[in-house]
């Protein structure tokens, strides 16, 4: 593909992809097979996200400052049958959602990170802590001895809630995408990107808040007045943390710091969903990515049949799911890139197009080492 604008050709190694984005395309090439894979996998992802967000919200509201939350994955519905199923691992791996939450907590970003360090938040958290510890002298002593300990726990609880709220919006976006595909309304990858983009735009200003109820009284930890919104304070930090920084694709690749495989400047270290190797490495018995495992239960029939036609059939289902998932995440990333683009992609103003070009080249710099090139040719 060549640039259709009157800008000089880009010298970027991923110039073809930049031109594609400028012409209304996506990071992922458009093909009926890619559309089917992406929509199918996002449907199962939507189902899994639905379970994840419910659990994250449950933990943030009902396991608040429970320091040994043994049954946090049971959403308050404990039974021996559920426990046995949990141990058998034929279940939703909620741990994955927690890993993503921790990735956001560690990497920060957005106004949320800044707000959690304000005195206002500390005061609100302290009130909730005092209310929670009433009648518990042991924990009160601990809290006095280590005043930051429980505050940090509350910060983590805030991230539980924020990620839960983010996925509560994303899950229906993916499920309605699948419904529209089934009705024949989604026919191309740009259609997919546009659907996600519209969903993000619709929810962009949705406020992010967090409150807990302790002994019948509500404690607002992130009030509406903090001004946190869905797109800039939940979606963008999430994409940054999970797509570009760290993602718990357990057992897929390991880095050796002594062999200088990790750059000394941490911000240069890219190991997110868009970078993770879908092939497990090492030896037999390494656990597959929990998310892939969870999605195996919900992939639609047409996608399952597509996977079964490949040489390994059912054997490498999780690897194939991972490949499809990365394709879908490049679509979501496209939506984010287009949504944050300084000017509309089809702007006639040469100056604006030039700024858009610089913006896209900066993104491509970040994606140079990602799986972007591999997904162009469906390579594992």
């Amino acid at each position, binding site marked *: 593909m060549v640039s259709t604008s009157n800008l000089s050709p880009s010298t970027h190694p991923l110039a073809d992809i930049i031109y594609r984005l400028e012409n209304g395309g996506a990071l992922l090439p458009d093909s009926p097979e890619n559309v089917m894979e992406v929509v199918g996998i996002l449907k199962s992802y939507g189902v899994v996200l639905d379970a994840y967000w419910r659990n994250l919200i449950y933990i943030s509201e009902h396991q608040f400052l429970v320091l040994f939350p043994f049954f946090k994955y049971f959403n308050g519905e404990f039974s021996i049958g559920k426990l046995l199923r949990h141990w058998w691992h034929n279940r939703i791996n909620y741990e994955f959602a927690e890993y993503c939450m921790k990735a956001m907590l560690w990497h920060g970003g957005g106004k949320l990170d800044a707000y959690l360090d304000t005195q206002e938040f500390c005061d609100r958290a302290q009130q909730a802590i005092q209310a929670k510890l009433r009648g518990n002298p042991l924990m009160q002593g601990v809290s006095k001895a280590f005043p930051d300990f429980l505050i940090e726990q509350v910060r983590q609880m805030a991230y539980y809630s924020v990620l839960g709220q983010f996925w509560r919006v994303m899950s229906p976006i993916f499920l309605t995408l699948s419904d529209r595909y089934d009705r024949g309304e989604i026919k191309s990858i740009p259609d997919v990107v546009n659907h996600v983009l519209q969903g993000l735009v619709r929810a962009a200003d949705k406020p992010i808040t967090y409150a807990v109820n302790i002994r019948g009284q509500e404690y607002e930890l992130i009030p509406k007045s903090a001004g946190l919104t869905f797109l800039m304070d939940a979606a963008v930090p999430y994409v940054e943390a999970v797509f570009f920084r760290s993602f718990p694709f357990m057992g897929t690749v390991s880095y050796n710091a002594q062999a200088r495989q990790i750059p000394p400047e941490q911000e240069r270290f890219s190991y997110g969903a868009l970078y993770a190797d879908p*092939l497990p*490495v*090492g*030896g*037999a018995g390494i656990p597959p990515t929990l998310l892939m495992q969870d999605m195996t239960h919900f992939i639609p029939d047409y996608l399952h049949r597509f996977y079964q036609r*490949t040489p*390994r059939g059912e054997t*490498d289902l999780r690897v194939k799911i991972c490949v499809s998932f990365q394709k879908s995440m490049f679509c979501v990333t496209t939506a984010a890139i287009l949504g944050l683009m300084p000017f509309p992609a089809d702007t006639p103003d040469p100056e604006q197009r030039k700024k858009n070009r610089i913006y896209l080249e900066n993104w491509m710099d970040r994606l140079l080492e990602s799986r972007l090139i591999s997904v162009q040719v469906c*390579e*594992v």
Partner: protein
Amino acid sequence: MLSALIVIPLLGAILIGLLPRVSSSHAQTGAEVPDYSRAIALLAVTLAIFWSVLLGFKFDTSISHLQFVENMPWIDALGLTYRLGLDGLSLPLLVINALLTWFAIYSTDELLQRPRLYYMLILMLNAGVAGAFLAQDLLLFFLFYEIELIPLYLLIAIWGGAQRGYAATKFLIYTAISGVLILAAFLGLTWLSGASSFGYDPSRSQFLPLATQLILLGTLLIGFGIKIPLVPLHTWLPDAHVEASTPISVLLAGVLLKLGTYGLLRFGLGLFPEAWSVLSPWLAIWAVVSVLYGAFTAIAQSDMKKMVAYSSIAHMGYILLGAAAATPLSILGTVFQMISHGLISALLFLLVGVVHKKTGTRDINILHGLLTPERGLPIIGSLMIVGVMASAGIPGMMGFISEFIIFRGSFPVFPVQTLLCMVGTGLTAVYFLLLVNRSFFGRLPVQFSNLPPVQWSERIPGFLLATMIVFLGLQPSWLVQWTETTTTAMLISYPTIGAVGHSLTQKDKG
């Protein structure tokens, strides 16, 4: 009763020969003509396995002399007698012959070209090897020893790799020379001792001058040394292995090489004990050379199959060391090592065969990350790790038991040579870890990320062999009990060897 082990596979081969051929008209019309040759071959060998196991149950482990003896005059004028017998030396080898032939047939590609001829040849090979292990007449042994060359030559020459003609011819020339040398030694022994028949008689050489005995034993050693093979008579083996198909490599390493080591014990040590005791220090040195040369050369290989082939050469050296020391323990160890090496090398060759079939290469510089779950060959890789651990003598597996018994038995007689051979064991770990590390660990390269799936039928032989290797490593007495009486009795009959061993031990102490 013993003849059944020769007759059953031969009958199977004849039956396959009588099957209707898939005619060209059938091929043109595309009509499916069922081919029963594989089923018949499997059935015949299964019967042979049952028969061998039955013999094993009926075998009296407290008796040192031959059992189930069959004796039939054949050509009196030549002094040739059809005399078969079974003792603790030949029984385990007979069982492994039947067992590995079954694995070889089972793991043969079902879409093989000219299947009738292939399975007939395998059954003939099985019959020939069984006959050689059972023969108690020198000429009869020689006949069986030579007969197995023909099917093996054809199996390499027809179904082998690109250089199969070269490899098969080299194999034929080397082993034909081996046969000539063995025949010459047998003729020399019989004629010079004035015997009227070729019957196996351990006391026959004792009236011959020592120089004559040394010449005859030397001839035998070179003859069997080619077959085993010992360095520098080994050059046919890596070529034959590389060009042979996987099932034939399994038979070659697992069974055919054992004809050489069996001959070494039965006819070298058994017929020339006095000369053996004179040559034994040199034999021990020869063993060290073979072990170290085989191991160092294996380290330098990049072809998995060649690496396993050179490892075979190294491991055969342990047998020569144990035979040279000729203590009851070391001789017992040599028999255990024959079975252990048979099972372990069969496992390794089978697994290398699967890797080659799936990836199209055996080059450890190209292969990488095959243990990768889901997309690689994780089960084959895990079995390979079991195989190389067994080969390197990790406790709990057969390789450890056999090497430990040999070293324990040979150390009092040849301490330096034993220690040097133990270095070879360490080197086994080096080259096999290189193999496993390069080929099985790390990230699966893009060109191998869509390997065809491995079927369970390809894994089952590996699982069975690995199970036997571990089981007999934990419970070696099941195998030892068959052999111990025979090997101990072998040495009691030859006081000279014990004396040499004893005098060397005394000298060391002095």
